């Protein structure tokens, strides 16, 4: 990473002001903080300003946010230059943030970097067609699926130079793309599907039953009473020699049984493994996969994949969505073009 500076004056817009909707949204963010702590809203506001300005932060936006929050300009500049998620120079329609931290690096981020270098040139420059710009950033927190990139708001994981190239071609051409793992891996489970905990007896209760049987047989053989006495004696002796501080459970989070887990099903007398679960473990069609595809999670996740891929998508709700900014709003295709137009 190199020094981050504001874009040259020639690229800076003359002025910046939040659109009425964004200004409303910003007020909502500011209201979350107590009087005198309004500066806490600086990151959401900068993020919104970046979104409104076509994905990058101009000088006037930094000043507008500073003035709105009553902060000295330098304080907001400090924040904007600290985080690489704030682009200080114009970005392409698709802004690729390539993770270059150790796990990604050891899984091949360097090849991705070389590929991006070859295809797009030096980082921080918008490609000639205006489609792409890229930047190597520090850990984006998807190490299990390394190497990965963030393109605008979405993570694309398990990449190879070829799959990243295809992805970029698809994005540029406006074809639908798959968010998340590009090898079809489900969330962050091992590559090629589950390799451990595959024994069916783990889930049908038969193992637990066998162990219990063994203890029951043993205690019957030794005599219940003798064992009880021994246990009591040894516990008392231990308590005297190694006093331990009691750990009261009051106020602690209590673990509740999962609603739909193999063990729970076994306890309820059902078959611990649902029919077809093993088949679902196939990466192409698993429950987790279905979550990603939006079936159980419903409208919110579905909206994600409906995003117009050629537009700069809106930011996710920063620091917790508030009621006045509905989550469904980003999916409105008619709202998107005006947000991407830098002239507005």
């Amino acid at each position: 990473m190199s020094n981050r500076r504001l874009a040259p004056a020639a690229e800076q817009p003359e002025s910046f002001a939040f659109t009425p909707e964004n200004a409303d949204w910003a007020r909502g963010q500011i209201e979350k903080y107590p009087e005198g702590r309004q500066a806490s809203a600086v990151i959401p506001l900068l993020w919104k300003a970046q979104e409104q300005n076509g994905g990058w932060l101009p000088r006037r936006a930094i000043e507008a946010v500073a003035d709105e929050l009553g902060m000295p300009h330098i304080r907001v500049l400090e924040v904007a230059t600290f985080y690489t998620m704030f682009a200080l120079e114009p970005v392409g329609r698709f802004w690729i943030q390539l993770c270059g931290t150790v796990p990604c690096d050891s899984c091949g981020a360097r090849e991705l970097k070389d590929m991006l270098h070859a295809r797009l040139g030096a980082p921080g420059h918008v490609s000639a067609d205006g489609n792409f710009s890229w930047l190597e950033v520090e850990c984006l927190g998807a190490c299990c699926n390394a190497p990965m990139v963030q393109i605008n708001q979405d993570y694309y994981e398990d990449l190879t130079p070829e799959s990243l190239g295809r992805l970029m071609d698809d994005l540029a051409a406006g074809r639908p793309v798959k968010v998340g793992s590009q090898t079809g891996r489900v969330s962050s489970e091992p590559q090629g599907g589950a390799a451990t905990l595959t024994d069916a007896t783990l889930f049908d209760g038969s193992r637990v039953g066998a162990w219990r049987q063994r203890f029951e047989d043993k205690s019957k053989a030794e005599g219940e009473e003798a064992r009880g006495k021994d246990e009591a004696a040894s516990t008392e002796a231990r308590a005297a020699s190694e006093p331990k501080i009691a750990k009261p459970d009051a106020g602690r989070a209590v673990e509740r049984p999962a609603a739909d887990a193999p063990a729970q099903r076994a306890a309820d007398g059902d078959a611990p493994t649902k029919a077809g679960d093993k088949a679902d473990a196939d990466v192409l069609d698993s429950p987790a996969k279905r979550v990603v595809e939006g079936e159980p999670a419903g409208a919110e996740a579905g909206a994600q994949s409906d995003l117009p891929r050629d537009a700069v998508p809106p930011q996710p709700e920063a620091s917790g969505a508030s009621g006045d900014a509905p989550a469904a709003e980003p999916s409105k295709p008619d709202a998107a073009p005006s947000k991407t137009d830098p002239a507005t």
Partner: protein
Amino acid sequence: MTKILVDGIEVDVPAEFTLLQACEMAGAEIPRFCFHERLSIAGNCRMCLVELKGAPKPVASCAYAVKDCRPGPNGEPPEVLTRSGTTKKAREGVMEFLLINHPLDCPICDQGGHCDLQDQAMAYGVDSTRYGENKRAVEEKYIGPLVRTAMNRCIHCTRCVRFLAEVAGVPDLGAIGRGEDMEITSYLEEAMGSELQGNVADLCPVGALVPKPQSYNIRPWELSKTESVDVMDAVGSAIRVDARGREVMQIEPRVNEDINEEWISDKTRHPVDGLRVQRLDRPYLRENGRLRPASWGEAFAAIAAKVKGTDPKRIGALVGDLAGVEETYALKSLMTALGVANRDCRQGGERLDPAWGRAAYVFNPTIPGIEAADAILLVGANPRTEASLLNVRIRKRWRMGPLAVGLIGEATDLTYPHTYLGAGTDTLTALAKGEHSFLEILKGAERPLVIVGAAALADPAVLAAAAALAKDVGAVTPAWNGFGVLHTAAARVGALDLDFVPGEGGLGFAGMIAPGALDVVFNLGADECTVGAGAFVIYQGTHGDRGASRADVVLPGAAYTEKSATYVNLEGRVQQANRAGFPPGDAREDWAILRALSDVLGHRLPFDSLVALRRALYAEHPHMAAIGSVEQGDTVAAVDRLAGLGGEVAKATFASPVLDFYLTNPIARASRVLAECSSLARGRALEAAE
């Protein structure tokens, strides 16, 4: 109080002390860069690491409280080791990290010789580096005319950032970027806007921020250092005047907890080049409308010829803003001997009368006393420009806890939040009548403080109204002196102490400078006024400014760095300036000039040396002998007397006498550095007005 062992020495310290403070109590030296007693704790340089028994790794002693230390297994006091192997290794490691990117340019670095990093690398570092890669290169920044940057040297202690944000209250500096790319800069490299910005160069522990005006000119070991006091404003900040040979090279602050702590304003720090140029280095005589160089004898003869044929009622004496007590005393003695009653020192037109008592014209609560106040009313005062360091103290008080500040006068940014009440005398009247809720705050305060600024001193009725208000809100009690006058000139309080005001039937300042009022005017350094036509003006001063250009005889005197002189600051604190160099050319110390002149005029003053002068002065004014202390007057009686003056308050708007902070006296006006500061400040003011 908590017991703690430091290197085996048990000390008993308050629980909220940091380990660093506890170690210092025990006499152990802890190296540090980012930590500064008067700034918030940052804990980012890691130089102060010490071994704490029981802690898994060394702890940063500046940011670790004594109360957070765990006792030993059997309840022994916690133990800190500042000389152990772990501590030594930690310090060496930190120093090696700091030096990874620090350039080895000590031979050309202005900080060389008084550099914390240099000293601590010698004391706590190792002799070589294991780092073979290239060092980081950082672009230089423009952050103003007073501080030059060499950002390669920056170790990111953020002292400068914290100083401007906390003490100065003008947060212009910040750290942009992160990690290795962190850089200290101002927003888009604009000049810093604080009138205290020079202090960031003092605070910088390395050579990243160095004073720009004396760049590459001096080395600390070639300077002779003289402890003195500042005369640029009435605060009387403690300074150290560094001279090389006979030339003053720089002025640095000295610690004086009662006045300036360890900061000074830029006007105090940078009149240095003004001390060299525009100097009056020989007497001048006006002949045919032009001043020509003359000898002392000629000049004195011309004065004697003029004075001897003049009625004492047509002679007057003025004392300006920079005169020391000694020369004021000498001038007063001479004028008394001549039978002259026309004398005045109140160049700003303040209608203060020493007859009201000393407490009526000094800043009674004293500067440290501000920290005890819980509500402040500023009447016709802009402390930020009139007494910057006093403003710093008010800001310090505001940072300590809730403080209500009300301002009547010019609307301005005082660097702390305040209630703007109004612009003129009618607001004061309305406030006194209870037409403003701020009166309730003042009345509810335990120790309210009323500060009357120079702008409110032109009318005794306003002063009386302010005093009555102070009395009304309970600002003046036997236990609390909550009434203070804010002067702007270093000479003023001393001259008022000497009663340098019109004698029986004498004319005041305005009367004396009126055209045709007098035949002979003796002007001791009054440059903010022009004596009217008709008078024969004898100007004694240091710089070719307004006073000298109107003069008929110019007598070259010594500036404050060139004489031993007593000054009384606005609190009434008597302080002595010391000689760091000699006056240029034929210029002489002012009291000696007056002594020589008195001989020529036939009224020889009864002292032949400074010691004899002071002996006479102390006999007449015993409080002048108490250097460094404030003689508290009877504030209750003085404020009663002031309030009793009464009078109709004329409707007027308060206007500060300090129009341009950087150019308030002839020395400052001669300085190019301060001229640049002034033009930048004007630009900022214009921009703000748009």
